[in-house]
């Protein structure tokens, strides 16, 4: 069994702060982490490897620093990490990103058969949820997004049954393999890696692929050239004008609540 997981190193958005004067992100002191959904995708891949044998390859496009994320994946049990890194890739939107990842996966498929492609359902910095479906489309592979569970997986018969969460419930879908899954966190709980794996990962250096080696990417399709969208402007959301905050400790609970109810009524939104 060979599973390929595509991950992204992201700033921990729960720690992101904005400079209120310039409206720009303060990246200083913000830890870079593996996109949380992606970490669960790696965990699923490693579990399937333990069950069926085979290997797990993790790929990521990003700056040299993103190599750290691949080392963390190695700790989790991934066998091979590939960092696709080149200045030419910068400012890529989801279309250009899905091109680079799809071409990389094609190159890996040329080395030998691949059974499963895994992506997190979305990255917490961009929240687009577009790259996984984009790659599936480019490769012409079956796509199951928002996957929450793998009911069965048979790399020999090349079929699998996957649970997918939608608004109306859980869809139970059968697919041929290889297929591409974008996963929710429930897909596999992350277990703490054994010490031997951590030691192995600490000695592992991921491969680095550039825009020209070993895959020659079409320069018209990568980076800013290959991106149909641009950011026109970016700004911090204007703060809403807040109403008063009354302290129970000062007014007592009864009169505070009475006043609150009066405000709700005065706003005319709901009849009490």
């Amino acid at each position, binding site marked *: 069994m060979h599973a390929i997981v595509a991950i992204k190193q992201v700033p921990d958005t729960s720690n992101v702060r904005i400079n209120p004067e310039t409206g720009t992100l303060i990246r200083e002191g913000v830890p870079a982490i593996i996109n949380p959904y992606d970490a669960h995708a790696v965990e699923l891949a490693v579990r399937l490897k333990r069950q069926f044998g085979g290997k797990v390859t993790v790929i990521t496009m990003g700056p040299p620093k993103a190599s750290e994320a691949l080392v963390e994946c190695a700790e989790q049990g991934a066998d091979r990490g590939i960092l696709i890194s080149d200045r030419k890739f910068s400012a890529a939107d989801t*279309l250009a990103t899905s091109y680079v990842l799809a071409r990389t996966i094609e190159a890996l498929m040329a080395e030998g058969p691949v059974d499963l492609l895994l992506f997190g359902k979305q990255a917490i910095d961009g929240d687009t949820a577009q790259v996984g479906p984009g790659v599936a489309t480019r490769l012409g592979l079956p796509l199951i997004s928002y996957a929450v569970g793998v009911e069965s997986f048979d790399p020999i018969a090349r079929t699998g049954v996957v649970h997918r969460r939608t608004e109306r419930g859980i869809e139970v879908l059968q697919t041929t393999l290889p297929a591409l899954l974008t996963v929710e966190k429930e897909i596999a709980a992350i277990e703490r890696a054994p010490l031997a794996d951590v030691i192995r990962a600490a000695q592992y250096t991921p491969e680095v692929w550039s825009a020209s080696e070993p895959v020659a990417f079409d320069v018209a399709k990568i980076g800013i050239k290959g991106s149909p969208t641009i950011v026109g402007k970016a700004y911090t959301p204007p703060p809403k004008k807040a109403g008063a905050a009354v302290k129970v*400790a000062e007014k007592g609970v009864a009169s505070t609540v009475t006043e609150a109810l009066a*405000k709700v009524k005065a706003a005319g939104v709901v009849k009490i």
Partner: protein
Amino acid sequence: MSDTKRIWVLIEQEEGKAHPVSWELLGAAQRLAAELPGAVVEGVLLGDGVEGIAAEAYRYGATKVYLIDDPVLNVYRNAPYAYGIANLVKKYTPEIFLVGATTLGRDLASAIATRVATGLTADCTELAIDPDKHILAATRPTFGGNLMATILCKTQRPQMATVRPRVLPSPTPAETGAGELVREPLGMTEADVAVKLLKVIPTDSGEQVDIEYADVIVAGGRGLGAPEGFKLLEELAELLGGVVGASRAVVDAGWINVSRQIGQTGKTVRPKLFIAAGISGAIQHRVGITGSDFILAINSDPNAPIFSVADYGIVGDLYEVLPELINQIKAQRAGHGAPEVAHA
């Protein structure tokens, strides 16, 4: 004809029922059309025996509906839907294409955009026509809602965007409406589809909540202290004819089902009344509730960011405040009769 700029809206349907986000988008499309000379608003509808929905789309402002009606489209699957729509796009070259940012819409839109090699802006909260360039300016929150970015699609067409349900107001349909129905073939058979739907396990009926469209939401966060705290919220919600929502923290902690989650990674809501109890109000949560008409926040921490978006804030112990709130409402009801949601 070449001057006609088609603004397309996906009429999302499942089990023969249109998703209301489709009508929200038709409303938005009409507002965009007013700013864009030569623009027409049209719908795209796929399914199996769903022609009836087209008539509804006309009432919400579509002048034309492109319909692919085929048994293969009976249940939503990415490949046949994306294939069919991409062919429509190639044939009719719309200028703008809007899709609801639902599970289905997000899955589908990125596949379409990739097939036709165009730009797609996900999860927009605001749509406008750039007055100088006459192109779509799609604004979306990014970095967990810390930053708003306005995205432009330079030259590729259509300019695609997904928009979350309830981010835009729901339009009122016209009494009657008429439009042109354009039928197109799918050009694909069941044998071509690799993914088969075996069954759907419906969400537990107790958990099935239409939180996005609720008029009153009573939501709880970590300040509840324990999952049992939701009982108190349920009581208040029931009293107000509303539903219970939650912050991501308590969903992650397993206190309540994910269908209740509000915020960046959950649902966007725009109730008439939103009561936040023990929710600190991280930006990721706040972006999901700012469409509410009235926000009442209760938190023991006077510095909780939730107060920055609240219309009225109570700094205190929610276990003191909520029972008092319930009591006072009951007391007032004793004289006034049953609750009723005011129609704005």
